[in-house]
């Protein structure tokens, strides 16, 4: 294994650093890297290059070209730059390219060079120009910070939700700072800048001078500063060739290093990983690369050509015209296994497996050694972990083979860590492939998550690979395959050279009824590309009407939307379309449309009842629906109108409508009501009190109660109140008045059409037994027993029942016999019964 660690470089006592090649770049760069603005996205992202003609004093006559490559150097896009001079390039977290122009306008491009949008960093920039800009990443998204010609800073912490923050002025700042960077502390973005020997921290409230603890004396200027990937650490490079490394809060120093090179470095970036043993920065000059940390010696590399550093979560990528390399601190597991003469369990297991393959007995010796120490589990785990950190598939395989070998000798080793690592490595190897060109490390992949990785593949239009990965990892369809298919479909609809039919068919063939695919989203995209017909075709496949209808409306296909809404049976949707149609069409057309859609019409009527009464009337008029029109006027007569004349007029209209509807009953009833209303009004004028709106019955009752018997009689005659009703009415009213004298007179006025039992009942209800008895005597024979029982005369009731020889009556009386008082009566009945039976 001695050759394997040949590229390992120790830094101090604890850590090794290694640099290995990711790709040999065969991109066809027309320009030197040094002449270009360069931006490489983290997490193995794409590289953008823009030859910078504005850097040199002479104004170039030819327009520069913006080129985008994958990390493996495959061209993704190339476009002629037609906009203004660019100060800085950078990638957002969504892998969108942000190009900050001198005039403060930021142009946003997609991975394939498609223009997305633009925004401005503020008006004051127009005059002062942008001197420098940084694109940075926070937990909220991607931010932009600019330095203007007036030496002021402006930043936006999230370009997705643009809020510009103008940072406070640095007092007495006359020239541009020698270097600056954005920091992120407590979820707030700050700016750290160096002016001569001083450092200033700008937050949104104030500018404060800061001093790094333990900074060596004699510094007159800071040439470079670097913040770590996680914003936790800060490194400063001074004009004395001295590097200070500490926390980004400037509260603590980690270490310092004197490299004795006074030339300003081209780039300085942190090289660490989560749970690093060593904190180190990588400093690059024209031809020299240096790794420095808490150690007296540094690691030095010679750069053969112009190179560019890309900080990553767990190391640094270095690309040049011909190669792309990765420099990182060797992870613990790898170190344990591969370190020369390592006796770590993983190292022994790897040896054992190799000997086993050679069919050597040493395999057994090694294995025994591990087992004796009880470290086999640990050994397997180490091998699995180390496999994840290897870039070369053959090394991954040999480590996994060792792990698998060791597993055989373990009773209960849970298989998932091994299986998961195999799966992860397969995915990683697939995307690291030259053709794909995403050189993610295992740690980066875990940080990024599979979902984001899939997004990035989709962004690169690598749909088949993405789907394969989903299927391989058995991701749920909704998150995996269907989402990717939907993205594919959205891309597909943009292919202008394919006909609507073909696109729609192709999409439906691929997508079918895959769960989680929203055809309406795809249709919306098609509509966005100006392909309305295609959008309609796609919407046909959308099973959810709630999604179909709004888009159809947006596309101004309201009638289609209406029929879809009606099909759905969702009234809410129908209303949505109706209100839309109402504004879109003129009234006549709108009504005609409704006419053909009964459900919509009835819903609209319902709506009008609450909101637009006049429209309701028009609707009925249009349909010659006189019955409803009549009802409408009736309602208006008491709901909308206050004055009697207005109400009578409304009723007249109602009556006319009812005649037209051949509903004579309603017409007559309405005319009666008109008469009654006028009369009630007159009664109020003449007698005072409240009459309007009472029912006929209540009107007459009110008159009787008020002692206007004559008026009551007259009214009853005028409105042909049936005798029965009138008798009930007067009986109840007079009893209520307790006008017993009048009641008796009334009862004798003629033969009662309702009989005399009601008189008994009502008197009893008023607890007047005396009066009740009077009427009981007048009750006809059929109801005599009932009447007598009502007034409590059980004995007489029994006599009558016996006389009637009516079994039902006898039973009834018997059920009223309670207590000793009625014992004799009960006896009598029983005797009568017995006698009847004898006969």
């Amino acid at each position: 294994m001695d050759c394997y660690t040949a590229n390992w470089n120790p830094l101090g006592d604890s850590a090794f650093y290694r640099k290995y090649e990711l790709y040999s770049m065969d991109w066809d760069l027309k320009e030197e890297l040094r002449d270009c603005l360069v931006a490489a996205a983290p997490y193995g992202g794409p590289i953008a290059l823009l030859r910078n003609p504005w850097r040199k004093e002479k104004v170039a006559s030819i327009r520069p070209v913006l080129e985008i490559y994958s990390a493996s150097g495959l061209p993704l896009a190339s476009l002629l730059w037609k906009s203004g001079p660019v100060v800085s390039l950078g990638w957002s977290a969504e892998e969108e390219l942000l190009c900050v122009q001198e005039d403060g306008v930021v142009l946003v491009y997609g991975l394939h060079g498609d223009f997305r949008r633009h925004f401005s960093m503020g008006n004051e920039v127009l005059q002062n120009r942008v001197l420098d800009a940084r694109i940075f990443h926070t937990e909220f998204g991607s931010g932009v910070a600019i330095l203007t010609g007036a030496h002021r800073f402006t930043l936006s912490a999230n370009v997705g939700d643009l809020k510009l923050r103008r940072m406070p002025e640095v007092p007495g700042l006359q020239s541009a700072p020698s270097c600056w960077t954005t920091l992120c502390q407590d979820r707030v973005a700050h700016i750290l800048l160096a002016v001569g020997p001083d450092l200033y921290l700008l937050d949104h409230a104030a500018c404060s001078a800061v001093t790094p603890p333990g900074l060596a004396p004699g510094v007159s200027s800071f040439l470079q500063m670097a913040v770590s990937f996680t914003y936790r650490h800060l490194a400063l490079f001074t004009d004395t060739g001295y590097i200070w490394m500490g926390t980004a809060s400037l509260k603590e120093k980690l270490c310092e290093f004197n490299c004795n090179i006074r030339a300003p470095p081209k780039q300085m970036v942190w090289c660490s990983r989560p749970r690093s043993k060593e904190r180190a920065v990588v400093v690059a000059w024209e031809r020299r690369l240096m790794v420095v940390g808490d150690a007296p010696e540094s690691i030095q590399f010679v750069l053969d050509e112009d190179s560019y550093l890309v900080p990553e979560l767990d190391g640094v990528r270095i690309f040049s015209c011909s190669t792309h390399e990765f420099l990182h601190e060797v992870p613990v597991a790898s170190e344990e296994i591969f370190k020369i003469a390592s006796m770590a369990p993983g190292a022994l297991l790897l040896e054992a497996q190799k000997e086993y393959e050679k069919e050597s007995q040493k395999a057994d010796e090694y294995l025994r050694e591990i087992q004796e120490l009880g470290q086999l589990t640990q050994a397997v785990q180490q091998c699995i972990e180390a496999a994840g950190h290897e870039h070369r598939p053959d090394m991954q395989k040999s480590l996994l083979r060792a792990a698998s070998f060791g597993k055989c000798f373990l009773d209960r080793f849970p298989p998932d860590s091994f299986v998961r690592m195999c799966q992860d490595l397969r995915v990683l190897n697939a995307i690291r492939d030259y053709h794909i060109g995403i050189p993610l490390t295992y740690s980066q992949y875990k940080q990024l998550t599979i979902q984001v990785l899939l997004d990035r593949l989709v962004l690169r239009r690598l749909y088949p690979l993405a789907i394969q990965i989903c299927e391989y990892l058995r991701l749920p369809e909704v998150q995996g395959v269907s989402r990717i298919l939907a993205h594919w479909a959205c891309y597909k609809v943009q292919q202008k050279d394919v006909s609507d039919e073909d696109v729609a068919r192709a999409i439906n063939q691929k997508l079918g009824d895959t769960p989680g695919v929203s055809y309406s989203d795809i249709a919306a995209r098609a509509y966005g590309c100006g392909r309305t017909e295609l959008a309609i075709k796609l919407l046909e496949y959308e099973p959810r009407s709630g999604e179909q209808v709004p888009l159809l409306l947006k596309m101004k296909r309201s009638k289609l939307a209406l029929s879809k809404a009606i099909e759905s049976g969702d009234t809410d949707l129908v209303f949505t379309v109706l209100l839309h149609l109402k504004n879109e069409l003129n009234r006549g057309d709108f009504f005609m449309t409704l006419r053909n859609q009964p459900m919509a019409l009835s819903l609209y009527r319902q709506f009008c009842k609450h909101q637009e009464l006049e429209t309701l009337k028009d609707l009925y008029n249009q349909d010659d629906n006189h019955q409803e029109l009549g009802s409408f006027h009736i309602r208006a007569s008491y709901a909308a109108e206050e004055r009697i004349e207005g109400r009578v007029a409304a009723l007249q209209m109602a009556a006319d409508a009812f005649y037209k509807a051949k509903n004579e009953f309603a017409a007559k009833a309405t005319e009666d009501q008109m008469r009654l209303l006028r009369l009630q009004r007159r009664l109020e004028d003449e007698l005072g009190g409240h009459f309007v709106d009472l029912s006929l019955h209540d009107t007459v009752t009110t008159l009787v109660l008020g002692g206007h018997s004559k008026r009551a009689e007259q009214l009853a005659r005028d409105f042909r109140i049936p005798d029965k009703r009138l008798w009930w009415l007067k009986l109840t009213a007079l009893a209520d008045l307790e006008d017993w004298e009048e009641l008796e007179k009334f009862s004798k006025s003629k033969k009662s059409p309702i009989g005399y039992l009601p008189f008994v009942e009502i008197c009893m209800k008023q607890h007047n037994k005396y009066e009740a008895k009077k009427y009981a005597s007048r009750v006809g024979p059929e109801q005599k027993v009932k009447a007598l029982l009502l007034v409590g005369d059980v004995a007489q009731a029994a006599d009558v029942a016996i006389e009637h020889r009516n079994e039902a009556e006898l039973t009834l009386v018997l059920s009223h016999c309670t207590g000793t008082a009625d014992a004799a009566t009960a006896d009598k009945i029983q005797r009568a019964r017995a006698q009847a039976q004898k006969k």
Partner: protein
Amino acid sequence: MAFPHRPDAPELPDFSMLKRLARDQLIYLLEQLPGKKDLFIEADLMSPLDRIANVSILKQHEVDKLYKVENKPALSSNEQLCFLVRPRIKNMRYIASLVNADKLAGRTRKYKVIFSPQKFHACEMVLEEEGVYGDVDFVTALCSQVVYEGLVDDTFRIKCGSVDFGPEVTSSDRSLKVLLNAEDKVFNEIRNEHFSNVFGFLSQKARNLQAQYDRRRGMDIKQMKNFVSQELKGLKQEHRLLSVHIGACESIMKKKTKQDFQELIKTEHALLEGFNIRESTSYIEEHIDRQVSPIESLRLMCLLSLTENGLIPKDYRSLKTQYLQSYGPEHLLTFSNLRRAGLLTEQAPGDTLTAVESKVSKLVTDKAAGKITDAFSSLAKRSNFRAISKKLNLIPRVDGEYDLKVPRDMAYVFSGAYVPLSCRLIEQVLERRSWQGLDEVVRLLNCSELAFTDMTKEDKASSESLRLILVVFLGGCTFSEISALRFLGREKGYRFIFLTTAVTNSARLMEAMSEVKA
């Protein structure tokens, strides 16, 4: 009494899950407006809300004050307002006016509107009011209920499974909110009972309870300790419930005797059986003349119309005239609504055939009668109550007294006079395991899929002994129907789960149809 289920009847699923889900969803919605907020609730939603979350849960999620949604300016001074309403235009206008008032006053607050239950309710309401739902078994809904739970609903109105008993029941000056479900042990035993049995049962129960209390005498200290710690609480609880239900019964009795309930029931039965139509009509007329109750009068008129397949023209006019005179002219619109819904109609000349038909069908054999019925039903457009009730034997022939203590069929829910149509259909379908052989009935019901919305679903895969049946009532059902099906379940070893859009009764149905002067 509450007869035990057959031992092979399956267990019911755990329904408290539904409650938990609803509560979690509400909390989720409330938390979307973090911080203190006032909650405005539509009166309609108070009872449902009560079922899923109490005030302390609301307080936990920083609901400060509760307001009813009324047409009044809101006095709330909170910076965040949350509305929990039905999706109705009226409500939207109210909220809009509130927000606009704030705007005028230069006030900015956060508002959140929660709709319940999304949009489907609007659909249901509109359809109900517009009468789109063809024929439903209105007869059942219109009959006076005599089973305890139904009576409580008719008398006090059960809302979301709970009822407000007024002072007349509690015999104190406060009213009491009682949750009526299987957890109320007393209620659980009497809910499905005919009212005539309930009193007897309750007094028996009271005696038993007393006996249990009396056991205290003669206990030693240890037994007493046991009694107090284990049984007393349960007994007290039961005692409290018992007194509530006895109070409710008394109150029901008082109300019913005032209205001469016996007369009323007699008339209803006469209408169902089609006897003494003249007498019943006069009874209804008197009912109207005496202004007993607008809703009750209307109910009887509708029942007459439904059972007689429309009123004869003379009665149709005179009853309507009388009604208008008694209760006000705005009911002209009520009649229009009822006619559209098919609840109160005039006999068309062709319909007189039904009288002949019912006579014919008595004479000839059942099979022939079926054919004749077919012929007639194609003549008569509307569903025909007589034909259906004959076909399905909805009105059982009774020899002698119907013993309500030991009910023999589902008709006990209407004192033996009538089996609710839906229940009989479910029974038939369950017996046949399909709609097969019910074609004639289906035809009589007119396009049954739409009109007859009870769907009986059965899990065929499960073994014979597992007979758990989900009954879905679209458009609502009555407590009587539920009681009848529970009876069926006990007899045949089924377990029913009821899913209904609403529990309805005659008053609710009639009120929905009535025009009310604003």
